[in-house]
């Protein structure tokens, strides 16, 4: 074997071994590094400062900040963290760099307003972000929808929600459901149908995975809330007719002529407590439910499902 051939073989072997070692070591380093510090540190939180520092490359910087925002939320959500302190500043920097970046506004409406652990718990900041978006994109009806969405879901301010939906419905090209939503707010704001319409619209109007999963989770929770409400009414009817609390869900099913015990969207039967309360058997699977939880139950951090079962 000549000298050059020997060098080639040795150098190639060294390269391959080193590459494999580097990959393995990087995976180990990722595990031991304190990631928390990096995740919760936004060195420049002033949108104006970042805009000036971008030296005219605002579009590219906006894309980088937007990706960072999604990563920040996704990573913390994956770790089931309960705080999203940097979400607001990240979205503000992103939209200051590119005021026309619609997905950032939509993300803000979905995750900036809800109370922890579902979001950053900053509805006022979310509203400011939406109003900034509307100011810069007055022809985008979806921003009105997002603003109304925040008023409706987080603040239960149906008056403002109706007003914003009505304004959005005037924008050329606005989806017809904007008019329906505006009308619904006046009298049927608390109906399940209205809420379902809103969350379905949220699901259909985006391709962003985390927003879609969040909307699906709310739709699943709405289904459970409606089921529990209907079953609780059935229990009341049973008590009125028989003068006693039903002993099992089977009795309810028989009295209401149902084909079987009603089940939640995951297929688990609803339960009945000894004092006639309808309960969800796996409440942790439905982090947004407002009915059917056992007494003293504290919801855990949300986890997203990818499809409605």
């Amino acid at each position, binding site marked *: 074997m000549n000298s050059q051939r020997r*060098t*080639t073989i040795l150098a190639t072997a060294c390269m391959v071994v080193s590459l494999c*070692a580097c990959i393995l070591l990087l995976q180990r380093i990722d595990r031991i*590094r304190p990631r928390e510090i990096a995740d919760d540190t936004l060195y420049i939180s002033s949108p104006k400062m970042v805009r000036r520092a971008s030296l005219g490359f605002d579009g590219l910087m906006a894309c980088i900040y937007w990706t960072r925002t999604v990563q920040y939320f996704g990573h913390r959500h994956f770790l089931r963290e309960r705080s999203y302190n940097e979400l607001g500043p990240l979205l503000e920097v992103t939209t200051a760099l590119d005021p026309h970046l619609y997905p950032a506004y939509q993300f803000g409406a979905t995750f900036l307003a809800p109370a922890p652990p579902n979001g950053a718990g900053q509805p006022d900041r979310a509203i400011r972000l939406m109003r900034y978006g509307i100011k810069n994109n007055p022809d985008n009806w979806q921003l009105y929808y997002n603003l109304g969405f925040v008023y409706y879901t987080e603040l239960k301010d149906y008056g403002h929600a109706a007003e914003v939906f009505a304004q959005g419905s005037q924008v050329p090209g606005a989806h017809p459901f904007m008019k329906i939503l505006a009308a619904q707010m006046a009298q049927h704001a608390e109906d399940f149908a209205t809420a379902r319409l809103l969350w379905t619209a949220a699901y259909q109007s985006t391709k962003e995975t985390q927003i879609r999963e969040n909307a699906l989770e709310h739709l699943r929770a709405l289904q459970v809330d409606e089921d529990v409400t209907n079953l609780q009414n059935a229990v009341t009817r049973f008590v009125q007719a028989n003068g006693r609390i039903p002993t099992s869900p089977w009795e309810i099913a028989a009295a209401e002529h149902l084909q079987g015990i009603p089940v939640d969207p995951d297929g688990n039967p609803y339960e009945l407590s000894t004092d006639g309360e309808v309960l969800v058997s796996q409440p942790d699977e439905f982090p947004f439910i407002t009915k059917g939880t056992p007494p003293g139950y504290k919801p855990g951090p949300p986890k997203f499902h990818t499809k409605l079962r």
Partner: protein
Amino acid sequence: MNSRIFYIASNTFREAVRDRVLYNLIAFALLLSGAAVLVGQISIDIEKLVVINLGLTAVSLFGIVIAIFIGIGLVSKEIEKRTLYTVLSHPVRRWEFIVGKFFGLAGTLAVNTFFMAIGVFAALLYVAHRFVAADSLILVALYFIILQFLIVCSLALLFSSFSSPLLSAVFAFSLFVIGSFADDLRGFATLTHGITHWIATGAAYLVPNFSALNVVTAVAHEQPISGQLVLQNTLYALFYTAMALSGAVLIFDRRNLK
């Protein structure tokens, strides 16, 4: 180390000194002493933080610039001046030439870093008036910076083994910038799917991970650095350097120098 590699390395070091590379220390000393005096007057409660951040960042940037601009000329300059033919006419193998050049440049940077470290500690003493135990963490940060230099030196040599000095500088500097965002790159890769995911993940693992070697902020906040991280980072830097040097040897060994 074999004696031929040692001679090439010591010659490279001498050449760098003759080229007045160590003059950067004067600029560094001026920057740091100026900053130390200035922050003492304008910073409130964060004088030490500013000096550590500024000092370590300057050590890193000065070193990276030296590593790139000296590294890219190590091979091409020898070819240009035709001194390479004299070297290779002796019983020196090409891989020994590359490895010797690497050690020479690494040695230059180590000496440079040593003097700059003295400057950082002097500035720190000026603003804080005394040292505390946590200041020893600065040594860990300096060690990680030297590990970064080793990777950058090997990359500069790799590029200079097949490209022009200008392009080598662009490649090496670009890889340094990309490597500084390696964490984000791997984060982006996790967001992708299918074939894009594999390509992005592959690229993310192939670029040097400088972000893991950057503990300046953590050290400035006196956060402890685990022994495990020191060990893994050392091994990572050594393996990455070996990989890049092997690539340089492979290319240079087959290069037609006529």
